[in-house]
């Protein structure tokens, strides 16, 4: 299969800050590709370069065979995008926003009406279609953005955190629709997400990106297999004892250890058989274990492994970041 997207050493520097750092990825036609990374990893910046909205500092990228810097017009003809940040006209109604989009993409009246109906149905905004967007709730605005992005069925569709902040039920609907678009309409989809289960459930391949660099790239299943063992997670009172960690380090059957907020995660084959032994060791070391859990590796663990923190820790800091952004906006 031909490649829908070829990225070669793509880099973006914002006055001294390397937001995207020599990224090279090929994405096949018809693939549903996920970008997973903490806040500020460079996901949005990468997508905006592919969508011709930002000029790369160096490197090249081709979308549907067209170079994003040399042939931006042709690239734009092949792509669609759902932005992470708001991009609606609040002074227009929901329907007028969709109509604007459809006409900019040269859709004829019949198709326009059909698709508007379809996507408004999908996001359950039919009864609100004719009120001004400024009177929508946050979630309704998000749903309208999604509806708009799905309207013109491009060759390549970029979804930047499409379901962020939506309720689980709506998210499910949208997942199904995205999957359908990908499978039935053969649309190549690149999506960024904070929801591990979204990446796991939807994506053929996932790239984990951190500080602008791709640190892992494979099918979700293969990524999980690289962890290669079960995760035994010990909840330990107070802080994790250094001596205890050193002690555990001597055992060959413990493949990896990772501390995070009061938990000690151990990668262990056949985890269930090792738990009694671990309890013994803890007792000898005088460490109080408050709880033990055992699970098969998830993408979350893969993320933790490569990025060094859980995505949930990331999410709590999202609020701070938003606050920081607002501050910067009003004080410069």
């Amino acid at each position: 299969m031909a490649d829908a997207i070829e990225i070669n050493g793509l880099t973006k520097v914002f006055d001294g800050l390397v937001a995207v750092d020599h990224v090279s990825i090929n994405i096949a036609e018809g693939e549903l590709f996920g970008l997973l990374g903490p806040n500020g990893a460079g996901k949005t910046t990468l997508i905006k370069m592919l969508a011709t909205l930002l000029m790369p500092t160096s490197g090249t990228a081709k979308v549907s065979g067209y170079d994003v810097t040399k042939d931006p017009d042709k690239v734009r003809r092949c792509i669609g995008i759902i932005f992470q940040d708001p991009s609606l006209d609040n002074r227009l109604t929901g329907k007028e926003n969709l109509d604007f989009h459809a006409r900019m993409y040269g859709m004829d009246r019949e198709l326009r009406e059909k698709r508007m109906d379809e996507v408004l149905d999908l996001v359950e905004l039919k009864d609100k279609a004719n009120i001004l967007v400024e009177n929508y709730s946050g979630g309704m605005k998000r749903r309208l953005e999604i509806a708009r992005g799905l309207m013109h069925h491009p060759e390549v569709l970029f979804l930047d955190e499409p379901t962020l902040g939506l309720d689980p039920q709506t998210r499910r609907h949208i997942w199904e629709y995205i999957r359908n678009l990908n499978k039935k309409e053969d649309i190549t989809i690149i999506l960024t997400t904070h929801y591990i289960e979204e990446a796991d459930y939807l994506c053929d391949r996932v790239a984990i990106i951190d500080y602008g660099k791709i640190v892992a790239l494979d099918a979700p299943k293969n990524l999980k297999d690289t962890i290669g063992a079960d995760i035994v997670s010990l909840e330990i009172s107070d802080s994790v004892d250094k001596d205890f960690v050193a002690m555990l380090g001597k055992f060959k059957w413990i493949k990896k250890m990772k501390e995070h907020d009061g938990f000690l995660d151990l990668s262990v084959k056949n985890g269930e058989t090792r738990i009694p032994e671990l309890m013994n060791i803890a007792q000898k070391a005088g460490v109080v274990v408050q709880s033990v859990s055992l699970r098969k590796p998830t993408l979350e663990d893969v993320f933790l492994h490569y990025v060094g923190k859980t995505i949930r820790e990331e999410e709590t800091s999202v609020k701070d970041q938003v606050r920081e952004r607002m501050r910067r906006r009003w004080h410069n």
Partner: protein
Amino acid sequence: MAQLINLEAIYVMWLREMKRFFRAKSRIAGSLAMPFFFLAFLGTGFMNVRFSGMPPGVNYIDFLAPGVIGMILLFASLTAGISVLWDREFGFLKEIMVTPVSRVSIVLGRILGGVSTALIQGILILLISIGMGSKIVGIFGVLSSLVFMVLISAGFVGLGIAIASRMKDIHGFSLIMNFVIMPIFLLSGALFPLEGLPTWLITLAYIDPLTYGVDGLRGCLIGISHFNLLVDFLILLCFCIVMVGIGAYLFEKTEVD
């Protein structure tokens, strides 16, 4: 060519401007207020004052009306051009810029929308000034003044787009208000005749494109102008073409983040 000039896109950009314009009733009232007060208070206040250089037999309100029309066109069209900045701030610019529509068509749609809304306001002020007793030389004068109104608006929408394309956010907006709009307005001869002014002021006035706009409007509406009407027309036309060109060029190169 068909792709460079995308009529459907130009239409829908225009349609959007019109919808937004008619929905912002309080803003329309607000923007008409200032020219109205100029006419009502300045026109009445200076009724019996004779500026040196005022053509004989012309009342101050007759002289002022074309100037105030020029003023509303300047304000309305620069604001329309600069609305690119508001689109940037509210994120809608991304939606526009990622579509396959050529930048030229986007700019043309914006200019068409800006010119339409400015023209509506200009005509309203013209009607108000006639209602307030300002004399007009005839229907042909009114029609030819529309040509000048279009040129003034298109030129300044272009300037607005050019400025907005170079600015990252709306923080510089009041700077523009004070350092671009006010000098252009005050130097244009909208409020007082250019005759008999000191040379440095005259020089500045001659650089100001609105000078030729106001002069052209005056020539059409009250039949008296400082320059030849054809000169006004040609200079404005050049200004208009250059500004639309610069606006389109800078808009083409703008990044959206």
